C-alpha cells in the first residue's frame, strides 16, 4: 500500500474505491462489510468474529491515516468514536445481521438464514403486542408522574432560602440508590404483612392492604417507585431553566402589573420549554427500557401483567435461548425508540427556529 501518488479525483469511483492506499477508508469500509458478511455465513462464530474484528481494525487504521495532520479534530475525536464503534455500533450491526438468522446461543451448530421470519414471528405474536401494551401503559404513567412531580419540585427549589442546598441533596438521593435496593425495598414496603404501606392503610381500614396482586395495583407500585426515583432528574433540568431566567424580566413584569399566571406563560415557560422536552425525551426513552425495576419488583407479575418488552427480550434470549428471535424483538424496540427520538428532534428544532430566548 502506498501513500505516494494520489488517485486523481476524476478517476472512476470504483477505481478510487479499490485503490490500495492507507488512507482509502471507503475502500476499507467496503472490505469490512463484505468480509464480515462472508465470514458470518461461512465460518464458525469464533473465527468469524476475529476476522471481522481484524477488518474493523483495518478500517480504523485507514481512518486515522486519513485524518492525521489534516484533521486535528478527527484525531482528538477518534478514540471516543473508536470505543463507541467497537462497543456499540459493531455489536449493533452484528446483532442486526444476527436477526436474519436463527442463531441460538446454546446450540453449537452454525446458524442458517431465515430472512425476515424472525421479524414476522415477532410482529404476529399476540404476546408481543400484549407486552407492548403493558409497556406503553407503564411509560405513560411513569413519565407523566415524573414530569409533574419533577416540575413541582423545581418550582419549590427555584428560590434561594436557608438550607436549600442541604434539602436539595436530600431530594436527590433517590436517584443515587441502586435499582436492586429500590426494587427490594419497595417490595418490602408493599408487602401486605409488614410493609409500611399496608400498615399505614391498616390504621384507617383495619385490613392489610395488598397492592401487588392486582394488575393495576402492581402497575401503580412500579410507577410509584420509578417516578420517585427519577422525578429529581426532571427537577434538575427544569430547575436549570427556571434559574436561568434573568431576574430583571420579573421586575419588569411586576412593574407592568402582569398577573402571575401570565408571567409564567410568557416569561418562565419559554425558558423551560426546551428543557422539559429534553426531560420528557430522556425519561420516555428510559421508561421504554424499563427492566431493572420490573425484574426486581414483580418479575413481570402478577402473571405477565407487568412484563415489559425489555423484560420479554431478556426472557426470550436468556431463559428460552431463542437468541435471534429476541434480537428481532429488540430491534423493533430500537426502531420505536428511534422514531420517538426523531419526533422529539423535529419538534425541538422547529421550536428553536421559532422563538429561542436569546
Amino acid at each position, binding site marked *: 500500500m502506498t501513500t505516494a501518488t494520489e488517485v486523481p479525483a476524476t478517476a472512476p469511483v470504483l477505481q478510487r474505491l479499490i485503490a490500495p492506499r492507507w488512507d482509502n477508508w471507503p475502500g476499507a469500509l467496503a472490505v469490512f462489510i463484505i468480509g464480515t458478511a462472508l465470514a458470518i455465513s461461512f465460518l464458525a462464530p469464533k473465527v468469524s468474529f476475529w476476522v471481522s474484528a481484524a477488518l474493523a481494525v483495518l478500517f480504523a487504521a485507514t481512518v486515522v491515516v486519513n485524518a492525521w495532520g489534516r484533521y486535528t479534530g478527527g484525531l482528538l475525536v477518534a478514540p471516543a468514536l473508536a470505543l463507541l464503534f467497537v462497543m456499540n455500533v459493531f455489536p449493533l450491526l452484528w446483532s442486526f445481521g444476527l436477526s436474519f438468522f436463527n442463531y441460538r446461543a446454546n446450540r453449537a451448530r452454525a446458524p442458517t438464514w431465515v430472512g425476515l421470519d424472525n421479524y414476522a414471528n415477532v410482529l404476529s405474536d399476540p404476546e408481543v403486542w400484549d407486552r407492548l401494551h403493558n409497556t406503553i401503559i407503564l411509560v405513560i404513567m411513569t413519565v407523566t408522574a415524573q414530569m409533574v412531580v419533577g416540575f413541582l419540585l423545581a418550582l419549590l427549589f427555584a428560590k434561594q432560602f436557608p438550607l436549600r442546598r442541604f434539602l436539595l441533596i436530600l431530594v436527590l438521593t433517590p436517584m443515587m440508590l441502586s435499582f436492586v435496593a429500590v426494587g427490594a425495598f419497595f417490595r418490602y414496603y408493599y408487602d401486605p404483612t409488614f410493609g409500611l404501606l399496608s400498615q399505614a392503610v391498616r390504621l384507617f381500614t383495619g385490613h392489610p392492604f395488598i397492592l401487588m396482586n392486582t394488575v393495576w395495583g402492581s402497575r401503580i407500585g412500579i410507577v410509584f417507585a420509578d417516578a420517585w426515583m427519577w422525578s429529581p432528574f426532571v427537577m434538575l433540568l427544569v430547575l436549570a431553566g427556571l434559574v436561568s431566567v*434573568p431576574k430583571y424580566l420579573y421586575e419588569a*413584569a*411586576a*412593574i407592568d*402589573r402582569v398577573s402571575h399566571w401570565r408571567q409564567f406563560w410568557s416569561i418562565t415557560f*419559554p425558558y423551560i420549554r426546551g428543557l422539559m422536552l429534553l426531560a420528557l425525551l430522556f425519561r420516555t426513552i428510559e421508561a421504554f427500557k424499563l427492566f431493572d425495576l420490573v425484574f426486581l419488583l414483580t418479575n413481570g407479575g402478577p402473571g405477565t401483567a407487568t412484563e415489559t418488552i425489555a423484560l420479554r427480550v431478556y426472557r426470550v434470549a436468556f431463559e428460552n435461548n431463542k437468541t435471534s428471535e429476541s434480537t428481532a424483538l429488540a430491534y423493533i424496540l430500537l426502531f420505536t425508540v428511534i422514531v420517538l427520538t426523531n419526533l422529539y428532534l423535529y419538534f425541538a428544532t422547529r421550536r428553536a427556529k421559532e422563538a429561542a430566548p*436569546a
Partner: protein
Amino acid sequence: MSTIELRGVTKHFGAFTAVRDLSLSVSAGEVVCLLGPSGCGKTTTLRVVAGLERASAGDVLIAGKRMNDWRPDQRNIAMVFQFYALYPALTVRENIMFPLHVERLEPQTAAGRVAKVARLLQLESVLDRLPSHISEGEKQRVAVARAVVRDPNCFLFDEPLSRLDVELRQTMRSEIKTVLRGLSKATVIVTHDQLEALTMADRIAIMRDGVIEQIASAHEVFAKPATVFVASFIGIPQMNLLHAQFEGVENGHGRFRIDDQPTRLPVDPAVAKLAKGQVTIGIRPRALVLDGAASADAIAGRAELIEPMGAETLVHARTSLGSDIRVVVPREIRVNAGDTLRLRTEARETHVFDHSGRAVRT
C-alpha cells in the same frame, strides 16, 4: 397629580448604607436626573421609588400617596431598564401590549394605543419581530414604547442610553426628550454620563456615597457647583482643582499660596469671610486666559502636552511644584511645549472651596 417625593429615605444592605437620608421632590412634567459615579446609590434610589427595593427608613410618596408598603405592581409606575428587559419570547407588538393586559381594554383600543406609540418611536417596521432579531437602538425604543403606552404616575429610566453607541445616543437623547415633553409626568433618569444629564434634565441631582451633593438646573451645577465633587464631576475637560493656602482678601482679590507661589486671584466677595487655611481653588480650563504680562495676578506654569481638538486646543501645563493645570485656548493661539504660561481668570470663574469641600459663594 404625577409627582414623586422622597423624604429622608435611607437604604441599608446589611452593614452597607447605599442611600443616606435622601430627600427629593419631582413635580409633574419635570425631568430630574440622578447623576453620579458607580456605587453612589442612584440606581438604588430609583429602585426604591419603583418598589423593587424597600426603604429602610423615610417616606416614598408617589402622586401624593405614601407607597412604602406597596408592591411595584400596585404603584402604577413605568420603568425602562438598563438591559431593556424585553420579554424574549414575545414579539415587539406583544411586548408593548404587555402592560395593557391589566387594564382590560377593548382589543381595538389597545391595538390603537400600540400603533400610536409605535409610530411615535418609529417601530412600525419591526412590530412583528422578536427582540433577538432587532438592533440595540430598536430594543431601546421598544423599552421606551412599553413604558409610554401606559398612563402611569411617573417614569423611571435606569441608564437608558448606556448601551448605545455615540451617534445613536445623540439621536435617542433628543427623541426621548421630545416624547417626555409631550407626556407631562414626573420623570427620574439615572445616568453616569453627564452629557445625558445636562441635555435631558430639568434638574440634575449629583450623588456621591448615598447623598445628593447638589440638585439644581444644568446651568447652575455648571456655573455654581456646590462642592468640589460636583465641580470636578461636571464639565469636560475636567475643572482644574488646585490646593492652596488662603491668606486673606485684598481689594476683591484673594491672596493664596499655590505650590508655595504667592498668587492673587479675583474672587467672590463671600470669600472675605473665610478663615485662613487650606482651600481648594477650582477654575475651568476654558476660563483661564493666557496673559503675556508678568503679574502676581496670574498662575504660572510650563506647557507640557499640546492636544489639538479642532476648534480649540487643550494645553496641559504644570506649575513649578508639579500641579497639573489644563487650559483650553482657541486654535488661533499657538502654544508650544516648554513655553512658560501666565494664566489669568475672572472672579466669577474662580471657585473657592473650603477645607470641607463646600463652595464659598454669595
